[in-house]
Each structure stands twice: as structure tokens, then as C-alpha cells.
């Protein structure tokens, strides 16, 4: 008879035994060794029925198919662009995935995206060799003009977005800024008032720092209200 060795939602270290016996199934971040299931990285245990998986708490971003990210154009290639994904692997956006416009052979691609541009893109495919393909065809995917970039740990992105986007819309409303959050931990903030833009950026940094403290939403709400008054004066 199998037995779970840890509590649900417990933090475990690599190599820790999570369960014994063959009654449970190892999922993301875990592996089976003999009749035990061990942690393969540091994370939070999540037990769903028979399946045991780990939710990562730290670490850099790793490109995943289907993620919407904010990238940075680092190079203009022969038929596309090389884009930095804020991870160990850079990505390529082919011109046929970049725009539905007709681009003539030999056209100057910098007309569309130049080095230094930030783009909101989606990952179409990640190969076994970690080559990443991007597209800009899709709702909300575009080149980002103006604004500022805030970088946070990719594992904190769900906290910045909040449940059904509650956190990010709260910041948007109280600072009057346009905010886009990439799954890779790059956040774009643009506001008409520089002071408010700065406040939004600071709030995002604050969420990253305090993501683990209970009552995050209330803390952030209080922080925004307090500082909004400062801006009006």
C-alpha cells in the first residue's frame, strides 16, 4: 500500500521522498525511483488524486509552447527576427508569422521591427533542441511602442495577474496605465502621466517582493491608494 510522505502544499527540496509504493503517479518536477517518488527540484507539492506534481517557486523562465511573452528584438535575420525571450534560449520570429502584409523579397525588415523593439508574441513551438518559434498573429499580439519595461521572476507572474486578472486590472484602474504581462516575467507599463507609470512599475515590483505574504491583494490596494494621493498633490 502506497503512502504519501509529505503534506499537500509543502515545500520540498530536490531528492526528498514524496511518496512510497506504486499507488501514485509522478508528474511535473518529480520522478520515480524504485517504489518511491522523489522531488526533482525545489517546489511546492501538489497532490491531485493519484498524481503528484511540483509547482516551481524559483528559477529562470523556460520557453513553453502556447505562452504569450514579451520579447526584445536582438537581431534582424534574412527572413525574420531573433528575439530575446528573457531565458537561456533566444527565439526566431519568421516574417510569415509576423504580419499578414506581403513582404517583397529583399525588403528591409527593419521597417517592421528594428533592433531594440519590444514585442508581445506567442510561442508556437519549442523543439527538443530548444529552438523557439514565435508568432505575432493572434489577439493582442503587437509591437509595443513607448512605455517602460519591468522585469520580474517568471514564477511570480500568476500573482501579478491575480485571479482572473484581478490584480493587474486593479493596478490598471488606479494608475490609469496600460499594462501587459508576459509569461516570461517581462511586464510592459505605459501611462499618460509619468508619475502614475512609475507608481504602476513600483507596484509590480512590490508584488514580486511580497508575493508570498498573506493578504497580498489588500496590501497592494492600500499601497496604491496611499500613493495615488501623493501624486494628486
Amino acid at each position, binding site marked *: 500500500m502506497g503512502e504519501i510522505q509529505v503534506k499537500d502544499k509543502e515545500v520540498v527540496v530536490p531528492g526528498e521522498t514524496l511518496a512510497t509504493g506504486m499507488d501514485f503517479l509522478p508528474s511535473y518536477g518529480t520522478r520515480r525511483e524504485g517504489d518511491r517518488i522523489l522531488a526533482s527540484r*525545489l517546489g*511546492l507539492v501538489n497532490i491531485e488524486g493519484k498524481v503528484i506534481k511540483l509547482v516551481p517557486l524559483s528559477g529562470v523562465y523556460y520557453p513553453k509552447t502556447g505562452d504569450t511573452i514579451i520579447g526584445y528584438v536582438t537581431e534582424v535575420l534574412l527572413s525574420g527576427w531573433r528575439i530575446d525571450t528573457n531565458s537561456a534560449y533566444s527565439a526566431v520570429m519568421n516574417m510569415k508569422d509576423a504580419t499578414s502584409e506581403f513582404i517583397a523579397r529583399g525588403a528591409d525588415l527593419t521597417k517592421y521591427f528594428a533592433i531594440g523593439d519590444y514585442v508581445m508574441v506567442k510561442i508556437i513551438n519549442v523543439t527538443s533542441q530548444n529552438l523557439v518559434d514565435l508568432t505575432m498573429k493572434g489577439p493582442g499580439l503587437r509591437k509595443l511602442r513607448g512605455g517602460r519595461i519591468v522585469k520580474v521572476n517568471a514564477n511570480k507572474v500568476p500573482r501579478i495577474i491575480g485571479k482572473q486578472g484581478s490584480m493587474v486590472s486593479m493596478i490598471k484602474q488606479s494608475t490609469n496605465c496600460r499594462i501587459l504581462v508576459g509569461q516570461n516575467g517581462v511586464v510592459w507599463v505605459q501611462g499618460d502621466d509619468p508619475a502614475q507609470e512609475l507608481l504602476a512599475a513600483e507596484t509590480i515590483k512590490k508584488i514580486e517582493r511580497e508575493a508570498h505574504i498573506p493578504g497580498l491583494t489588500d496590501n497592494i490596494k492600500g499601497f496604491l491608494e496611499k500613493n495615488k494621493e501623493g501624486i494628486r498633490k
Partner: protein
Amino acid sequence: MAYTERNDGRKPDELRPIEAKAGVIKRADGSGWFKIGNTEAYAAVYGPREMFPRFRQNPEKGVLRCHYTMMPFSSAGDRVRPGPSRRSKEIALVTEKALLPVINLGDFSNAVVDVFIELPQTDAGTRCAGICAASIALADAGIPMTDLVCAVSAGRVDDMILLDLNYIEDSHENGVDTPMAMLHNTKQVSLLQMDGEISLDQLKQATELAKKACDEIYEVQKAALKKKFEVTENA
């Protein structure tokens, strides 16, 4: 006069007081601090990130790169020249080899994980402290790994078999120091060095002491990592 009692009053199989922390360096992707007696090590981990120089990229598996440095003021009064030396390059190499068996390099081909170990204060056993700190830092950085690595030195001074030698014991004229690193789950040894001459029997006794001490160290490392993240549980 033979060495029959330890100069700091410890029992032969007693470790110096250990402290450990995770996440001490905010800008790093992961970091660890490990203190054993007066020996203190910081480790910072960056990556997986893009490998430069590019010709060192390996498309089959990732690369682990370790750096080991003693700070200029860290030793007993002589200034340690900063930068790589014959000694620090060797220690960086053995540290790398000690950590390698636990890391799943296949998960980050073409990329590199950089480990920087700095010692602000040294009193023997620096490579072991460095490995312990690096192990915490790698786990903190969320690197896919199979196990934690624990390391401690053991050895002999005159006829006494001792655990965790301090500098006075380490530099004793008739003494041997054998640093050892062990993977906690499998009890595999990933580092074993010997500085001096020791009989096979005494070596066995020394490694036996180190093996037991590694379990103690593991608990400290585990507690340090859990402490950093524990507040997350009720969030």
C-alpha cells in the same frame, strides 16, 4: 606531545556549529550561505542562461561552471591575492565534479549554470563549505537536480581520527585531511581528496565519521531551504 585532545574542546566526532541560509543574494537566481565554525561560504547561482563564449556551448547537454574565491582578508592575516590561482582553479574543478552528479544537465542544452563561491572567512574546510553552500544555492535557483550534496572533511591528527578539522588541526605537522562530498539519497561519494598519508583502516574510520556528519549537514541545508519558502505555504 601527541595530539590527544582537540584544541577547541570538541569531541573527535563533533562538527563545528553550522548555520545555513538560502536566498541571501537578491540579484542572483539562487543563493546560499553556509557557515561551519569560522569558515563561511557564500554561493550565488545564475542561470540556466545563454552560454558565452559560444564555442563552449554544448548542444547535447548544459554546462555547469564553478568559480571559487577566497576573499583577500579571509585568512589568518596574510592577504589572499584575488583572482584565479593554481589552488582556487583546482578547487573550482573538484567542486564542479562534486556537484555534477546531481544536476540534470540534459534539461538545459546549450545553456550554462554559473556557480560563484566566495569565502569571506576561512578556517579550513573551505571546499566543503563551498559545496554545501552551492548545493543550497542550486536548489534555491530551481535547477533540476536529483539530490542535495553535503560535504565535510575528516582526517587524522597524530593518532586521533577527527571530524571537521579546523585550521590548527588541518595544518598540524603529522596530520591528514580528507574532504568528502556525498549525495544524500544514494550515499554516493562525489568528492574524496587526501592531503597527507593515512592508512587504509584510518581512512575507513574517517570516511565513516564524515558519512554520519553528512546526514547532519543535510538536515541543516534542508531546513535552510524550507525556511526561505515556508511563508509561501499559507499565502
